[in-house]
């Protein structure tokens, strides 16, 4: 599997660290309430298709990336800098 880092270009999967579902980019407000925080910390969708994820190019440029990956086929649909997604 290869990922196209927006900064470094296409790189082998071994250069990346997998963090988890991209829900981590949507941190609830401190006062959002127990349900929102429970959902943010513990509850994840489990689709057999496209999933938005957070990866780190930790053996490359160090950027955090938002990756859309088909978890059934491992097809990489898109890779964006998490910094730009957040802004």
């Amino acid at each position, binding site marked *: 599997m290869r990922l196209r880092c927006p900064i*470094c270009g296409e790189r*082998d999967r*071994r*250069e990346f660290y997998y963090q988890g579902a991209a829900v981590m980019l949507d941190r609830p407000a401190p006062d959002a309430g127990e349900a929102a925080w429970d959902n943010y910390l513990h509850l994840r969708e489990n689709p057999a298709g496209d999933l938005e994820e957070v990866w780190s190019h*930790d*053996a*490359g440029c160090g950027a955090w990336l938002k990756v859309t990956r088909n978890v059934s086929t491992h097809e990489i649909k898109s890779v964006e800098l998490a910094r730009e997604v957040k802004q």
Partner: protein
Amino acid sequence: MADLIAKTPLDSMEPVTIGTCTVTEANLGTLTSIAPYAGAKIADTFKTAHGMAWPAPNRATGKDGARAIWFGRDMVLLAGPDPDAGLAKHAALTDQSDAWTAVTLGGADAEAVLARLIPLDLSPANFKRGHTARTQIQHMTGSVTRIGADTFLLLVFRSMAGTLLHDLERAMASVAVRG
């Protein structure tokens, strides 16, 4: 205070030649990471101060004795001169001089040797002089830069000096034995 003797990461080893390739410890001088603050415009200041361009991602500028090596997202490594004080207005400057092992690998089979260690296409068509990458060198995170037609500059953390030399020697021997 005792008179302490500074050792280089590879203890000033003699160059090692196996087959067509030679590993040489490189003394790059002062190493400074330059991390521009958000929105900072550092390129002109840098060029005026150090006489070389601020490198784009995956590129290195300068030459032997004074290089600017792109070193990751929003970071450049200045190798050689002490950083100009004016840069501090635009960026966080951190002395890294004792933190890195630097070697050059040169020789006709240098690309074949590195192909055993680095998961990148380093052929001249794809990785020209002045191209650089942050990537893996065997199991280490490192920096690789093409500084000549058949010469590469490699950097890994200082604590990995022995492992880098070991991995390079194994790869050089493996290429050499194929003749």
